[in-house]
Every structure is written in C-alpha cells, then in structure tokens.
C-alpha cells in the first residue's frame, strides 16, 4: 500500500474524480455500443456482414467519405488563405479578424444552416436576385443536393481550419523567408519551397480535425440535403429512431470510431502527432 502511494503522485488524486467520470460516462457507453454491434439482434458479426451485402450502406459510406474529403479540401484551402491574411496584417486588424472568426464559432450550427436555407432556397435571396436581374430563367438548385450540403459544411468548418494554421504560421521565423528572398527566390518560389513545407504541420492538423468532425455531421446534411444526401450520422439516427435497428446503428458508429483511430494511426506513421497538435514546426 505504501509503495502504491509512493508511486501515485498527488497530482493524480486531483484528476481522479474526472478520470472516474470519463470511464463511467464515456468509455462505458462506447464499450456498450461496441457490444451492441456484435450482439443485436443476434450474437455474431451479422451486422458487419451487411456492409458487403447492402448497396445502400456502401453508397452512404461513399457519399460520406466523398463529402468529407471535398469539405476538408476547400475548408483548409480557404482557411489557409484567411490564416495567411491574418498573420500578415497589423496587430489591430489581426485581432479584429480573430474576433469575427470567434463570433462565427459561437453562432449555433442550426442558425447558420437555416441562414443558408434562406439564402440558397428556390425563393431565397440569391435566386431571387439572379431571377430579378434576368441572369437566370430557372432558379439554380443550390439545395436538396450535395452542393448545398458542401456549402453549409465548408462554411461551418472554416474557423476550425483557421485556428491550427494560424498557430503554425505565427510560430514561423520570418527571417527564414527573408533568407530565401535574399538567396534569389521570388515570392512564389519562397511560398512553395519554404513557407508551405513549414506550415505542413498546421495543414495536417486542420485537415485531420475537419475530416473527423465532418464524418459525424448531422444537422447540415439533414437540412440542406433535404433527405436526398444521406450521410452516416443521419442514417444512424434513422436506424435508432425510426427502424429501431440498434445493431446496425452500433455497427456504423463503431466503424466511424475505428475509421478515426485508423486515420490517427496512419498520420502517426508520417509525423509525430504531438507536433501536429502542438502546431510547432520542429
């Protein structure tokens, strides 16, 4: 007992209640889901076998992955230019931009999705304007398709893309860019050969973050997709609430969990994850 007490640093006692909370309310349910996926309705791997059998499931998974990849690409691309613009502005402008960014963080996803509804609908602001000006004769289908889902998701994800990139870019030593120019490299060459490689940890971090968050997206695809664009999260909810196939839902949830873990493992093969999350360049 005394040896145990010696090994346990007092700091651990402080986090012990929280640790217990996490185990009880977080690990517990996850294990329960994993159990459900192999026991409901009958013990065995029947739920997982459905993946190979059901075309609908395969289509949903492919839609999900495709939307996540496109969302990640455009969010990081736009986030990169925003972060770049912020780092190279005066301190005053930078804090203004950061405030605007955080404000969009604080607006509920529901509000933001419904705003897009008003903008993109057939009788929405954009289509009404285009029709009124005579630029188009038929309203453009922005909604009830993948385009609408992508617009909504990318818009929501951009702040998440900016923050890791911003931290990364702020930690760069600008003398290194000066050195590049001094050695005769143009601005473009300096960007591709020095700046971009040095911001790679930030790019990886925000891509990972956005891809993982996108995998579980529910509200935006449900509203802007109008039931036509089915992603995993919505399908899980249907299985839980409508068809009551808890086993299938649990299987899909488990699949998403393992997918994320596999992604993290893959990344760790290429770079130290701590540098990704620390956003440092070393």
């Amino acid at each position, binding site marked *: 007992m005394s040896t145990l007490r010696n090994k346990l640093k007092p700091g651990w006692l402080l986090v012990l209640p929280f640790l217990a909370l996490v185990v009880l309310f977080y690990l517990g349910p996850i294990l329960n889901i994993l159990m459900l996926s192999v026991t409901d309705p009958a013990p065995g791997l029947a739920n997982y076998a459905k993946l190979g059998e059901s075309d609908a499931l395969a289509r949903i998974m492919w839609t999900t992955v495709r939307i996540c990849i496109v969302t990640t690409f455009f969010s990081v691309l736009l986030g990169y230019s925003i972060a770049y613009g912020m780092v190279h502005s005066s301190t005053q402008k930078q804090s203004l931009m950061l405030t605007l960014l955080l404000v969009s963080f604080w607006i509920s996803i529901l509000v933001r999705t419904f705003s897009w509804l008003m903008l993109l609908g057939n009788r929405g602001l954009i289509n009404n304007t285009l029709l009124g000006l005579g630029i188009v004769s038929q309203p453009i289908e922005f909604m009830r398709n993948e385009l609408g889902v992508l617009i909504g998701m990318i818009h929501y994800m951009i702040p998440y893309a900016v923050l890791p990139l911003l931290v990364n870019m702020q930690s760069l*030593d600008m*003398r*290194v860019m*000066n*050195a*590049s*120019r*001094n*050695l*005769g*490299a*143009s601005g473009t*060459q300096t960007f591709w*050969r*020095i700046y971009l*490689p*040095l911001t790679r940890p930030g790019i990886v971090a925000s891509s990972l973050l956005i891809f993982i968050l996108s995998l579980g997206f529910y509200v935006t695809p449900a509203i802007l997709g109008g039931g036509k664009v089915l992603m995993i999260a919505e399908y899980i909810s249907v299985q839980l609430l409508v068809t009551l196939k808890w086993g299938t839902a649990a299987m899909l949830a488990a699949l998403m969990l393992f997918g994320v873990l596999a992604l993290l493992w893959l990344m760790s093969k290429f770079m130290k994850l701590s540098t990704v999350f620390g956003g440092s*360049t*070393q």
Partner: protein
Amino acid sequence: MIETPQGNLQINGLSKSFGGFRAVNNVDLEIRKGEFLTLLGPSGSGKTTLLMMIAGFLDISAGDITLDGASIADLPAEKRNFGMVFQGYALFPHMSVRDNIGYALSVRKRPTSEIKARVDGMLELVQLQDFADRKPGQLSGGQQQRVALARALCFSPPVLLLDEPLGALDKKLRVEVQEQLKDIHKRIGTTFIYVTHDQEEALSMSDRVVIMRDGAIEQVGSPYELYEHPTTKFAASFLGKSNFLQRPDGLYALRPEKIDICGVDSAGVGPIRLTGNISSVTYFGSMQRVIVNVVDGDPIEVDVDSWRNKQPLTEGMKVNLSWQKGAAVKLSRD
C-alpha cells in the same frame, strides 16, 4: 557561371525614418571591392538598419545605394544578389545541409550536376563534408553558422552581408570562427560587410571599421587608425578603453596601456606628467589594471604588463605617471 560584378558599393546620403524617428541619418560610405568592412556600434546605432537597407529588406527614406555605378535602391532583395548571413542563421529547418547550401542555385534553375559540384566545393570550404545529409536541427551552433555562411556564398555573390553572425556562439568558439571567417574572406576575395557590437571582433577581423552612433557615422578607418587616432570621445571609449584628460586647449584621449607607472623617484618612459595614489589594483595574469587617483581630474586607469612590474603595486602607494609625447590624442569633439 554567375557573373561576378566588381563589388564596389557606394552609399550616398542614405536615411531611414520610422515615423518621426531617424534610425539612419544621412550616411555616406564607400565600400571597396574585396574589403572586410565592419559596422560597429551599440544597439540602436542604426548599423542593422543600414545593413537591411543594403540587403533590400527595408525601403530607403532618402539617398541612394549604387553597386559599381548603378543604383540598386529600387531592386527587390531577391534581385540584388547579395549573400547574407542572418542573426540566428535563418536556415531552412526542413531541408538538409546540402539543400540549404544549394538553394540559391536551385531557385536559379541551375543543372543538378553543377549544383552538386558547387555545393561539394562549399561543404569543403566550411569543412562540413560529413554533415551534408543532416538537418540544421541536428547540428551544433558553430556548424549551423558555417552552413549559413556556405549557403550565402554558394552563388558567388559580389558582396556578403553578415548580421552579428557570431552572437549566438560562446566566447571560445567565437574566436575560432573569427579566424575561419577571416581565412575564408582572404581566400574568396568577396566584399564582406559585417555588423557587430563587439569591439574585439571589429578590431581583429576588419580591414576598415565604421563606428556608428545614433544613426550616423562617427568615424571610419582601419582598426589601427581608429585605435591610435580616435577623433571623438565616443569613438575612443567605444573602441577600447581610454582615459580622458581635459587640458586648456581641449580634450585628450589616453589609452591605459600607454601610461607608465613609476615610484616617486624613478624615471618613466617620458617626463613625469601626473602624480597620484593607487586606489585599486586588479590582477589579470598577463597584466594588472591600476586605478590612480590624481589631484586634478578623473581617476586614471593604467594597464601594467605584469612582467615589467619591478615593484609590487599596492593600494595607497604614491606613484608618478608618465607617457611618451604623442600618446595622448587630441579629440575634435564629444
């Protein structure tokens, strides 16, 4: 190969203002081809600002810079073809030593074979042949410094700018690298413009030293000229140590090692000029620093070679101070 201009740099009436503050004020300077010129001054004297304007990283507020007769004031940094060793080196952390050194040639789209040959030559020059494939983070400070030097010299620039390149090294290593730098300068004949606040570095390495103060040039000359014939009080006290004597016809500077201490009755190297009492003696091995309180004026600092010390010097001793004619230099101003 890359053409090598003459490397004769002319600075005319150059100024830089930040808001209302003049960091560099109307500087005229000619930098001759192949010389080792040091900009020496305390922090805030404008030496780094001047260097950054030469490099093209700072816009010029007034004046002009010409290279071999042609103005380069409007050329962007990447078109000036000046090598530069940055404070803290600014190596590319994601590239190997080889790629760092070859960068200037690679952005100029030189053939791979030429880059390899040239980089090999540079690696040999700075004696880093065995480190070509390492990343900068895996090198010691001294090695990083040499990579920075090789990178800056790889494209045979007519002028090399060095911004306090030894600031991050410890004292012992610094002396060693000073020797290497001097040696490399001698071998390649490039014009070196070197910024430092370290007077020993300036004295031991340069062909000419520019002492800067408050954005303007205080005095320019060879280390010998500056040390032996300072024209201002600032120059005399910033480069080496100096006593100052107020005489009816003006202020004089007198180096501590030029003063001879003798007992009250014995003769010195010259006529006895001052008499006083020793207030302190500090022993440094090869020499002793003696402070003598004199009746009229500030205490006088005297450096005495230990081996010439005929009698032990103790506090309170009454001594005569003598020096040769011409040892005290008349200053033109503060």
